[in-house]
Structure formats: structure tokens, C-alpha cells
């Protein structure tokens, strides 16, 4: 059965009414292992995550910096399959209604079969799909199938996006637009470009759609500032670093990520 209201849209509508900013942490499925990554997702949900972005590991993550590259490498050692990923999401959905965004590159979806991917994603309970190397020009192959399942296809905008790109992408976008804060790959950064705020306003002037900001965000000090103009904040590499730093101490992975998640959540209050 297809739900009529997408959970991502619902969440943004509620948060907008309340004047709150959505917190979306990112983790890779299977890093450092299947069970621990599932426990991390659970911990994030109980410590402030409003939505979760799950990375499906790819061998050649061209838009990712070192931290997520290594995270995917660790996950790939455990050979995470699409069936594993769907199972991961389905288990998570049994315990929580938190919306799930599935993040990957296009080849794993294409290899799985795009139509079957949409069926499986829908059955598992995936609410949105973000394919980093699939600009609107190439998105129709996937869109035709996930649209039918009421799954949002999330698109990126970047500092390099000009007026015509913003118009094109906001016309395709569902759920929210993911604004990439820096010209660069993923990875925590101490300082972020000042142009972010004006760019978000530029996007909003073209279309009234929620704007999430990601890439480079790493601290509550940053989110405290960004919450004033962003509808959502996405944090990935900073969270993955807690895994990388505690590979021999899985309890500490959960503990440190939970604490960090809480600190971000309180900064958004």
C-alpha cells in the first residue's frame, strides 16, 4: 500500500509550524559492522535525530572525502547487499517512525534493477532517496519508479548553482533541497562559507521548499548559527569520525555518538 503523505513532507510541515530545525545525522550501513551500525541508528533516534540518512556503501565514492571513503571501505569488508540494506531499514521502521533517506551512488541501484529497487525500498519503508551522481537530467529512469511509491527524490544544490540550476532543481525537488555548503567533497570543516545564508535565501525566493544544509558541518556552535535560516542540518563525517576513533571500543562509539547527537539537538532547540 502506498501512503498518501510522505513522512519527510509531514515532518518538515510540522517543524515549520513549530519554528524548529530538523536534525539529520548520516551513517553508513554496515560500518563498523551490521549490528553496531544498527545500534548507532537506534541511539541516534533516541538522542535527537529527526530523520536518518543511511549511506549504502559504494566502491568509488567520488563526492566523498576521506572519512566517508574509509567508512564505506569498512562496510564493504562486511559485504553489505541491497537486501541487507532493506532489512536494516525494515528493522528500524519496526521500532521507530523516524523518516529514512537512502543515500548512495547510482550504479548499485542500476545494478540491482531500478524498478526492483523502488519496490524493495518502498516495502522496507524508505521515505527518500538521494543519489549523489544523478542530476535531474539523468534522474527520470529512477524517478518513474520511486514516484509511484511516494518516495521523495532528494536533489542537491551547491554554491556553484546558478539561477537556472536552482530553477530546474527546485522544480524536480521533493521533500527538501539539500544545499551543499561548500564546493568540495564531504568532510568536517572548522569554518564554513559566509555565502551560505544568502544562497539559501536565493533558493527560497525561487521556490518555497524546505532547505537542508550539509557537508562540512561539525559542531553545535555552527548549527546554532545555521538553524536561523536552514530547515534542516545534515551531519555525516563528524559522526563517522567517532566510529573511526573507537574501532576497538564499540560501546564508546555508541556513547560518543549519542552525546554528540544530544549536543546538536540541544543547539537546535
Amino acid at each position, binding site marked *: 500500500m502506498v501512503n498518501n503523505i510522505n513522512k519527510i513532507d509531514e515532518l518538515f510541515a510540522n517543524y515549520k509550524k513549530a519554528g524548529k530545525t530538523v536534525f539529520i545525522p548520516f551513517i553508513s550501513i554496515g560500518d563498523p559492522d551490521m549490528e553496531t551500525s544498527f545500534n548507532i541508528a537506534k541511539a541516534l533516534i533516541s538522542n535527537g535525530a529527526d530523520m536518518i540518512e543511511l549511506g549504502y556503501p559504494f566502491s568509488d*565514492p567520488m563526492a566523498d572525502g576521506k572519512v566517508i571513503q574509509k567508512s564505506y571501505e569498512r562496510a564493504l569488508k562486511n559485504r553489505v547487499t541491497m537486501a541487507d540494506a532493506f532489512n536494516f531499514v525494515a528493522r528500524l521502521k519496526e521500532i521507530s517512525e523516524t523518516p529514512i533517506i537512502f543515500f548512495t551512488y*547510482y550504479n548499485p541501484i542500476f545494478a*540491482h534493477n531500478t524498478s526492483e529497487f523502488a519496490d524493495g525500498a518502498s516495502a522496507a519503508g524508505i521515505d527518500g532517496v538521494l543519489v549523489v551522481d544523478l*542530476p535531474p537530467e539523468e534522474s527520470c529512469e529512477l524517478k518513474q519508479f520511486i514516484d509511484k511509491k511516494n518516495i521523495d527524490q532528494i536533489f542537491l544544490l551547491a554554491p556553484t548553482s546558478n539561477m537556472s540550476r536552482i530553477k530546474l532543481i527546485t522544480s524536480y525537488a521533493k521533500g527538501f533541497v539539500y544545499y551543499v555548503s561548500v564546493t568540495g567533497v564531504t568532510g568536517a570543516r572548522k569554518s564554513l562559507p559566509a555565502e551560505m545564508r544568502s544562497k539559501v535565501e536565493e533558493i527560497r525566493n525561487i521556490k518555497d521548499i524546505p532547505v537542508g544544509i550539509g557537508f562540512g558541518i561539525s559542531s553545535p556552535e555552527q548549527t546554532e548559527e545555521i538553524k536561523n535560516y536552514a530547515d534542516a542540518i545534515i551531519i555525516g563525517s563528524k559522526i563517522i569520525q567517532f566510529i573511526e576513533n573507537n574501532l576497538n571500543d564499540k560501546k564508546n562509539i555508541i556513547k560518543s555518538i549519542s552525546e554528540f547527537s544530544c549536543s546538536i539537538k540541544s543547539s537546535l532547540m
Partner: protein
Amino acid sequence: MKYPDNKGHFGVYGGRYISETLMPAILELEEFYKKIKNSKEFKDELRSYLKNYAGRPTPLYYAARLSKLYSSNIYLKREDLNHTGSHKLNNTLGQALLAVKMGKKRIIAETGAGQHGVATATVCALFNIECEVFMGIKDIERQKQNVLRMEVLGAKVTPVNAGSSTLKDAMNEAIRDWITNVRTTYYMIGTAAGMHPYPEMVRDFQSVIGKEVLKELKQIDKFPDILIACIGGGSNAIGLFYPFLKYKEVKMYGVEAGGFGLETGRHAASISGGKPGVLHGNKTYLLQDEDGRIKEAHSIAAGLDYPGVGPEHSFYADKKRIIYDTITDKEAIEAFRLLCRLEGIIPAIESSHAVAYLDKIKNEIKDKTVIINLSGRGDKDMETIAASISERNGKTVLQ
């Protein structure tokens, strides 16, 4: 119907599968290239550099002893005599002129065998542009001479230690750099692959090879029956084939790197041993596992050691206009030695794959006019060849 179409597709292949950060730059490049490619000023300038700097046209040499061996008429298109030692300069000269006109101050490139890296470093010296070349550490090890050449030409060679540490990983790293520095940097792709407009642009710049062959054969009143070229990404092959595609009677063979043999799974034959997928901005045949992760390629030839192929080749493979087949490492080495001794030409180990294919179709080439694209010279491969010879001698001793 002309390919690619206006969105960069060759049938179902090609396209622009790339991060949004790069889309404005890609669209700008496409517009710029469209505007400039037919302008007389650009064409004259490129022609002048190809003639006076690169030394074109390269000879079409009748290989008499090789022809006698196969009772055939075999001509070698001597891209090994092009400046820098391979066909790669045809493309980098064209793209560098474009980059200069676009006002770019920095050029980045990926390289496998180092031939594209050297050709990029060369044009960057020529046009006074900052140059950084990404190269896998495995390739740095087996192509040391080309690393030195790039460095003396003023390029920064950045080692890439990720994945298989070869061409694929160098390309990932170049794309990451481009995403970061896209406002100032021009990305010079070395093969007829990647996101549109690169496959078209590289093909156009390399087509000088086939156009010259047509002219050179006309002067001796001949026309080819069979064309043979090696395929990594496929730029030398499409450069030779493209001007002949309209002649239905001309048969074309693209020779992929069979490595240890297709059946071993350790090869770089994306068309013969892979299936369609999406990598590095285009949809094309790829070596991948059932979960859609890219597999490591293997070839003795660093320039062919790539798990993908240009999208135009995938298109003509499906249409069966071009026949794709494989040659193993071992067969390539045999052909390398054969050409050295019969013709006094040391071919690149990449190009040796094309030479080796003669033996596979020896019955078909009798009394025919055959063109082999000798895409590069083999000086860079001496260490690889020495290693394979000593390995063999070692075995002889053991026996």
C-alpha cells in the same frame, strides 16, 4: 543520426552522471566547446600546433616483414612518433587551447600509463598553466620514467593510494579535486569517457588519426579492409575508427586487455567481460560485482588497466558495428617482441595488444589491407618487459 544526442547520450550510454556541484562547469564547457569547435580561428590554431609542435601528420608505415609473415598488407599508424610518444597529445593540445580560451589557470588530469599525464604536463608547460596529475601508486611504480618526465615538465604528480591504486582511483581523486576547485580548474580527461561532453570532445580531437589515415591511403590509392586498435578507455581506437564508421565495408576490431585471461576474472575487458553500469559520469560497460560495486581491473598495460570503457564503444558494441575481443598479457608481450625484431619498432605494451590481434584473425587478413593504430612507443615499458623476460628465464632455469 549523429551521436551523441544533445544530452550527451550514445543510445542508452553516455550522459552526465555527476555531482550537482560540477553541473554548471560541465554545461559551461559544453557551450564553450560547441561555440569554438567549428570556428576557423580555433581550427587553424590547433592545426598549426599539431603540425609544428606535435609533428603531425604521423606516418602510415607499410610493415613489410610483418605483412609477409601474415601474407597481408599491414600498415602501422605511427602515433608512437607523435611528440611525447603517443596519441595522447592530440587531445591535450585541443583541450589546453580550450582551457586557455576559457581563462582557466589550473589543469588537473588523471593518468594510468602516464602517457596522458606527460601529454598534459607538456601542454601546461607550453601554455604556462599550473598542472597537477593524479596517478595510482601501483602505476607510479610501474611507469617511473613517465613520472620523472611529468616532473621535469613542471607538473605536480599526486600519488593516489586508494582502491586498486590505478587509473580508476586516480580518476576518483581528480574528480574530487575538481569538485573542490571547479571555479578555477579545468579537468583534462585523457580518454573518450567520462561525462558529456568529454567523450565527444576527446573523440573529435583524436579523429585526426583516422582522417590522416584516409588521406595517406588515398595517396597510394588504397582503402582499408580492417582496422585494429587497443581499447582501455578507447580514445586511440575511436580516433582511428570514427572517420571510417560510415564505410560499412570497413571491419573494425577493438582489442581489450584480457590480462590473465577472461576466464580468470583478472582482466580489464569491460565490454567482453563486464555489463552496463554508471561510473565516472557516464553509463557504459563496466567491470562490477553483482551488488554494483566496481571490480579491480588487471592488465600488464597500465594504460588499459581500467574497469570501464568510453560510452561510444559500448554503443557500437551493442550495434555490433565494431567487434570487441581480448588479448592476454602474455600474447601482448609476444607481439611486443615480434614487432621489435621484425620492424625495429618498440611499441607500447598497450599498442602491442592491437598487434597481437593479427594472429587471432590471421585467416581473415590474408591479402587484405589492414591498419593497426600503433598508439604509443614502448620506452616506458622496458622495466615491465624486463621483469616478464626474467620471470620466464627464471622458470626455464627451474625446469
